[in-house]
């Protein structure tokens, strides 16, 4: 079950950048205890709202989904570092819930000509297409079962897109294997590529080290505070 939650959070809405996240406490009790890191999917700076889109996977997200409208939620943010926006012809590649931060990115880049490539297992998972409509110059779709768009994975269709168009940035968010594949193709074409990681986190601010990953330079990176957005070659062995 996918849920969309809009929070009145003027201070966060004012400064949030695409790729950043909020750390949300889902209840007052000690079970579940920890906050949930959720990508910021939409921002309305004038009204002071932020929107997160999340999948209900466990007790925490189920509790969040059960809150009635108007409820107060304890929310820290914006946290982490966002995408580099220095682009004229961006290509966004996303899979699953990885499309949430890319939605914010697509809207922030508009009216630049944004191309989106999105993948899912089935047509039902590609409801994202309707959400992205209006913010992208073109949208390409793949499904594992061929029920919508091209049959296969995003990285099966990506070479074709790279052949025909000149993108100057690729942004990817989704399963690790997908991001690795996208980053390899981007490297081969000489296009700078940013990826966004997600991981289990406790603190969200770089203190607990539960979400660190190895950098290609031998130094460790914290997904929460050094990322979640990284240049692909910084954290992926390609």
């Amino acid at each position: 079950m996918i849920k969309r939650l809009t929070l009145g959070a003027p201070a966060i809405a004012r400064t949030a950048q695409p790729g950043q996240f909020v750390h949300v406490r889902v209840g007052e009790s000690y079970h579940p205890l920890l906050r949930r890191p959720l990508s910021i999917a939409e921002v309305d700076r004038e009204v002071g709202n932020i929107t997160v889109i999340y999948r209900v996977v466990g007790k925490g997200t189920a509790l969040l989904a059960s809150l009635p409208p108007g409820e107060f939620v304890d929310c820290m943010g914006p946290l982490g570092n966002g995408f580099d926006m220095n682009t004229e012809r961006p290509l966004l590649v996303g899979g699953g819930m990885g499309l949430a931060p890319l939605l914010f990115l697509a809207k922030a880049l508009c009216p630049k000509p944004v191309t989106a490539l999105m993948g899912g297992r089935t047509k039902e998972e590609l409801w994202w297409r309707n959400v992205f409509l209006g913010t992208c110059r073109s949208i390409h779709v793949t499904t594992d079962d061929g029920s919508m768009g091209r049959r296969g994975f995003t990285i099966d269709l990506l070479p074709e897109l790279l052949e025909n168009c000149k993108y100057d940035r690729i942004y990817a968010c989704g399963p690790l294997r997908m991001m690795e594949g996208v980053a390899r193709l981007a490297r081969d074409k000489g296009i700078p590529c940013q990826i966004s990681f997600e991981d289990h986190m406790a603190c969200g601010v770089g203190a607990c080290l539960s979400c660190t990953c190895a950098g290609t330079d031998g130094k460790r990176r914290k997904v929460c505070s050094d990322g979640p957005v990284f240049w692909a070659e910084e954290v992926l062995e390609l």
Partner: protein
Amino acid sequence: MTLAVEIAGIKMKTPVMTASGTFGSGPEYADFVDLNKIGAIVVKGTTLTPRDGNKGRRIAETPAGMLNCIGLENPGVDEFVSRILPGLAAYDVPIIVNIAGATTDEFAELARRLSVPGVAGLELNISCPNVKEGGIAFGTDCMSAAAVVTAVRKNTVLPVITKLSPNVTDIVSIARAAEDAGSDAVSLINTLLGMSIDIHRWRPELGNVVGGLSGPAIKPVALRMVWQVARAVKCPVIGLGGIMTAEDAIEFLLAGASAVAVGTANFVNPRASVEIAEGIQDYLVERGLKSVRDIVGRVNDSI
């Protein structure tokens, strides 16, 4: 009325410290809480050489708690002294460095290298359940615990706090051994060894299979151990384990802790250590008490 306490010669504005491993080096939380209002910051476990920590998933949530198996990821003592410590000088808060050696010689060397301006004290991590070398082995045996304290004592004039493991049959004997060997204070408890399993994948949730349990779930165990140890040693006791609120902290003080440390609560509420200190102050004022000392060890446990 004062919240100030002095633990093993370390002067603190409040009796509420942050627990090692839960507060980074401090500046990570500077955007959220005034670090100058914290009693003392106990820095993440530091080793002689840099460590990458454990592979795989490092945290899992459990009812009223969490498991972790970070595996002492840290940049190593030299990087800490040269790069991190100078930045901490900007804050008016005692910095206590938690150190973890694989051998007693490593503990001694760490103590030598950290005996520099800016470090207010050392906390000996003889109880980390998540590393293979050293780690918990030192904290589960009186002789080993004493050997580590002795080695450190010979190599520093800084106050030495020994952090005890709850994963033992008799924590009192380990506390006594540490005190007899020259430890200026003891802190307890470190995490309890635990495990959780993903029933859909039939796999342990943690990459390390087992990890350290922290959070409110362990508070009754920690409180019992603090009470037991505080009655058995003369040196100050720092109590920690699942403290989320001022009421929790006051329980530890009544049980005999001269100061407390807040750990997992920081992840839930970055301002926890300051808010807990304010709550203790309110409690003392309400009762017309002048000092934190007025409640330390004052639980009436006579039958």
